[in-house]
């Protein structure tokens, strides 16, 4: 994979950080506005960034999930294209039906902003195969990161090895300490922590880098 794209919705505020991370690694990175109805033909990987798209009105990610560009993202994913949703991006992917479940208000009702340790639960996906250690340190910053799904969905996630990351010390009440999940085909990843904030030793550490680097292969 050589070409990436990051989508900006009204209220996205982590799109620039995501662009900086992708630009560091990919040959070419597009910045796409949510009203666009075409994804450039050379795009191999799409990132949906964090923030407060549409002010979190109605439900976080619910309006962005219906933006014009999302029907193109759905087609792209259906054709095997790789998609990463971070934080609000994860919320948008669940609202768009590209990932199962939903992100609820954090159990303790507080916005949480801190560095956290994650366990890599699936080390074989295109996103996670670049890690040679079991635990990584990634920043989180969210109010609605409490992952929820019904028992049948949870069983399916576990059976199909779709849980990508788990919290070691669950900060938000997520069921089974889930921090990130993959779709069945393993080409779509949604996660609440921000790997794009862990690509520089000076700020946030380097544990986010392998996720983006392994996408190149």
């Amino acid at each position, binding site marked *: 994979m050589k070409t990436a794209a990051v989508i900006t919705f009204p209220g996205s505020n982590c799109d620039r950080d995501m662009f900086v991370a992708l630009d560091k690694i990919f040959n070419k990175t597009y910045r796409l506005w949510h009203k666009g109805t075409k994804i450039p033909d050379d795009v191999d990987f799409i990132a949906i960034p964090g923030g407060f798209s549409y002010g979190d009105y*109605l*439900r976080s990610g*619910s309006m962005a999930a*219906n933006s014009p560009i999302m029907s193109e993202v759905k087609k792209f994913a259906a054709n095997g294209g790789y998609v990463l949703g971070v934080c609000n991006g994860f919320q948008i992917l*669940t*609202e768009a039906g590209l990932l*199962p*479940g*939903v992100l*609820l*208000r*954090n*159990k*303790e*009702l507080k916005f949480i902003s801190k560095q956290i340790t994650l366990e890599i639960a699936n080390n074989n996906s295109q996103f996670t195969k670049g890690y040679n250690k079991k635990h990584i340190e990634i920043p989180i910053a969210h109010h609605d990161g*409490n992952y*929820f*799904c*019904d028992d049948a969905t949870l069983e399916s996630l576990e059976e199909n090895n779709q849980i990508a990351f788990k919290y070691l010390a669950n900060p938000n*009440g997520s069921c089974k300490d889930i921090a990130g999940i993959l779709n069945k085909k393993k080409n779509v990843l949604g996660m609440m922590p921000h790997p794009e904030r862990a690509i520089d030793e000076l700020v946030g550490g380097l544990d986010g880098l392998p996720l983006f680097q392994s996408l190149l292969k």
Partner: protein
Amino acid sequence: MKARIHVTLKPGVLDPQGTAIKKSLDNLGIDSVSSVTQGKYFEITLNENDKQKAEQTVEESCKSLLANTVIENYSFEIIEA
């Protein structure tokens, strides 16, 4: 035509905001409240004269946007005004 829509959390879905609201009612001395859950209320005005069509439109709006059916139930009434 007007539609009045209620969207509420399915039983069993954690509602920490409802719990916090109950605690605040307790603090106000209103102590006969045993539980609170918080939902959403929408009013939609439709350019529609056919009640059945209006119901279909509202049903579709609820399913596709107003409610996340993973965690929410919805109910509505149509008022011919």
